[in-house]
């Protein structure tokens, strides 16, 4: 469980990047953090990782205050997947790359072997274990970084824009992996401005604007906010927007084209009978 109470942080005095944010993420959640570029999303997650320390407030991770912990200490509990895989991949094979984290944390040799094997399997990389990771596609590299985080056996996984620069198929397979991990009990925190992903996968959304938390609740509730979400730099998915605008014809809000087409087809059919 991750608990932030009244957390603030600023890079320049007088300009808070994170402003008095309180947030509690329970074990097993699938949450998303959304907002404009520069709204404080990434600062918030960097605070969680102890890469920066809060100016005010406290962060408690699994019952322990993190103020005196290093990012390496946090890594046992929280795996952080950065946006750009090229900033961290440095070894010659996928398997040894994934082994780096557990080695640093002092796992024993058999522990390393088993956790690497498990992480590769869960991210669908077993067949690529001996490949030079830099030669992989962006989507595959992103999976290597997820495996690298998983191998340290964290209970929480934070991913910063993991789908950027990937094609539709790669995105789907990445989200499938995350959903499976979530079902196996991992807490997933996704930092994203991909509204489609947010709508389809996240159960809870936290919206940041100018460093403050401006929304925290279920996805459906977010899209019922109307014009506010545009103000926060977000856009509801097209089908959600359309189905809401058709509500006077008895259409209820849905997310996918298939669901909406069924609703409309039923009504048209009834009209024809």
């Amino acid at each position, binding site marked *: 469980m991750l608990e932030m109470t009244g957390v603030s942080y600023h890079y320049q005095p007088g300009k808070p990047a994170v402003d008095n944010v309180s947030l509690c993420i329970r074990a097993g959640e699938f949450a998303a953090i959304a907002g404009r570029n520069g709204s404080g999303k990434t600062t918030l997650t*960097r605070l969680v*990782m102890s*890469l920066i320390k809060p100016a005010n407030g406290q962060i408690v991770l699994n019952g322990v205050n993190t103020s005196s912990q*290093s*990012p*390496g200490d*946090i*890594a046992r509990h929280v*795996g*952080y997947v*950065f946006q*750009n895989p*090229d*900033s*961290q*991949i*440095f*070894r010659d094979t996928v398997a040894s790359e994934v082994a*780096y*984290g557990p*080695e*640093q*944390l002092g796992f024993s040799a058999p522990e390393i072997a088993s956790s690497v094997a498990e992480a590769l399997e869960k991210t669908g990389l077993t067949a690529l274990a001996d490949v030079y990771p*830099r030669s992989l596609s962006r989507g595959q590299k992103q999976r290597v970084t997820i495996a*690298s*985080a998983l191998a*340290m056996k964290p209970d929480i996984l934070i991913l910063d824009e993991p789908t950027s620069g990937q094609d539709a198929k790669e995105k789907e397979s990445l989200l499938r992996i995350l959903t499976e991990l979530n079902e196996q009990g991992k807490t997933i925190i996704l930092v994203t401005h991909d509204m489609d992903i947010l709508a389809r996968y996240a159960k809870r959304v936290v919206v940041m604007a100018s460093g403050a938390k401006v929304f925290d609740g279920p996805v459906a509730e977010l899209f019922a906010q109307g014009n506010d979400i545009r103000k926060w730099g977000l856009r509801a998915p097209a089908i959600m927007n359309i189905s809401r605008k058709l509500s006077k014809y008895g259409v209820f809000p849905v997310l996918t084209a298939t669901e909406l087409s069924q609703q409309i087809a039923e009504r048209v059919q009834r009209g024809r009978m």
Partner: protein
Amino acid sequence: MKQLAPLTKLVFTVAVSIWAMLLTSLPGLGLLAVAQVVTLAVCGLLGRTYKGILSLTGFAVVLILVQYALGSELEAAIAGGLRMIDMATVFVILLATTKMQSLTTALVSQCRVPQEYAFMFTTALRFIPDFLAESKAVREAQACRGYTGKGGIVRRFTSYLALVGPLVLRAVSRSETMALSLELRGFGAGRRSFSTDVGLKFRDYCTLLGMIALTAGFTAGRIVYGW
């Protein structure tokens, strides 16, 4: 100083270096250093540069002590240190008063330095902030995987690979993109123009004349009077 053309300042840099070589007396060298610091102060740049000057002075003191310890005469050792300060401070003045872009322009259009070399210099500077940002990103990414950089020398060295590896690979791909970008935007395709005006004005000619006169004076002084 800021209003002089970059070429004048380049000549000034060379001139001060020549003066520092010509002058041998301690008061002369000391005066040159003081004059330069005063110039910085008059231009209102001392606040920005004093740290550099101080560390230069510190370095000069070490240099003097080392020379003295190695058997030089005290006076010669101090002269060597002062000369170093004189020649280094003039570069501080040059860089603090001249935009990189103007300097490149002057080098290419007036000193006939091939533009490829001149721009290598500016693009290298352009690299620095990016490189710092990238190294921070790499350090953070590896910190989240347990990298600490602590331990014995061997361990520290091997663990450093985790930072150097991604950084070097990224720098290589960055420089490749930048080289491509230069060509894409027509760099070196024909006669180029320069957006900054580096032409010499009346005050530049006056300054240049003054510097020639001083140089001649110092030379004469050295030959005739043996300063």
